């Protein structure tokens, strides 16, 4: 049976400077899913003197080990969006490869390491396809 795309909510929280990192997830990945889009609200990350390093990670063994699947860095403020695209309001990582769709033990998480000022995020979602 084909996998039905689904979205898993990520609760809001405060992203602390210390101790790093702040971890969103892990989110269990259901059988059949092959790709994930990870989004977390960043509208309160506005201090230009603050920095963030984000790493998207996937586990194939229920979280015992993790492999990075992409990363980003930024400073506080809202990034420039492409012309004609909506404003960027999230930290996001799109099209993440989740590995073997038949593996019951997959997990995904996003870690944020912040310097400068803590901030509050309203959360986000992981969309699985």
């Amino acid at each position, binding site marked *: 049976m084909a996998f039905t795309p689904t979205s898993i909510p990520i609760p809001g929280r405060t992203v602390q400077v210390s101790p790093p990192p702040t971890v969103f997830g892990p989110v269990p990945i259901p059988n059949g899913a092959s790709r994930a889009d990870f989004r977390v609200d960043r509208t309160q990350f506005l201090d230009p003197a603050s920095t*963030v390093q*984000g*790493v998207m990670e996937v586990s194939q063994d229920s979280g015992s080990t993790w*492999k*990075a*699947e*992409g*990363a*980003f*860095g*930024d*400073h506080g*403020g*809202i*990034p*420039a*969006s*492409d*012309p*004609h*695209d909506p404003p*960027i309001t999230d*930290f*996001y*990582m*799109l*099209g993440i490869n989740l590995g073997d769709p038949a593996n019951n033990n997959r997990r995904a998480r996003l870690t944020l390491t912040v310097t400068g000022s803590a901030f509050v995020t309203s959360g986000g979602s992981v969309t699985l396809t």
Partner: protein
Amino acid sequence: MAAAYVQAQKVDTSGTSGGITITLTAGNNVYVWVRAGGTVTPSLSDLLGNTYNPVARDGSNNWPLAPDVDTDTVGVYEALNVLGGATTITISTGSSVTQRHVAVEFSGLTTSTAVDKAALTDNQATTTPTSGVTASRTQADEMLMGCISSSGTSPVFTAGSGFTKALAETTKSAVEWQVVSITGTDAGTWTMGTPDPGGAGNVTICAITTLKAGSGAANNQIAWIKA
């Protein structure tokens, strides 16, 4: 050794940098199709210490064409004869912009001055964009690397005839490849499910870079003739 596609990885995010995680095989060449959503000067590095140089960029290098009608920055960056191992290729842009980059690893290419010919064309409001045609290649055995970047919201890229789409793409950019073994001119072609809407600020950039296979390919051919 003939030129061959090994793998592709990508990152689709935003910020002042984007990181592509990839495990490289020593001795191969890596090409990163950079697409940054603003006018920036990217710099690339990885954790292994490989050096990435721009071999083709819009408005400079091998694509000395008119400025794009949008403000995106695109380019091909090359790391020759890489050190192997797990790494993250970081594309730093200084400004906080969208980061949609694809890294492709090839084997069997020459490890010095691999880029032979290149072309780039800005297309608008078409489902069949093209890079334009290169000058004639200097040798028969080469790898063609076609790249596309669209400002359309849901472009859906299909590789052109003879090309294979690399197994990693972003929401607005992709790479295709083709091994060739006879001399000639080349163009990177694509089909898009949804074209960019055209008008100010909307463009689909297509590019092609031809990459020379290593001398091993010629050696293999000689051995076959002798047999």
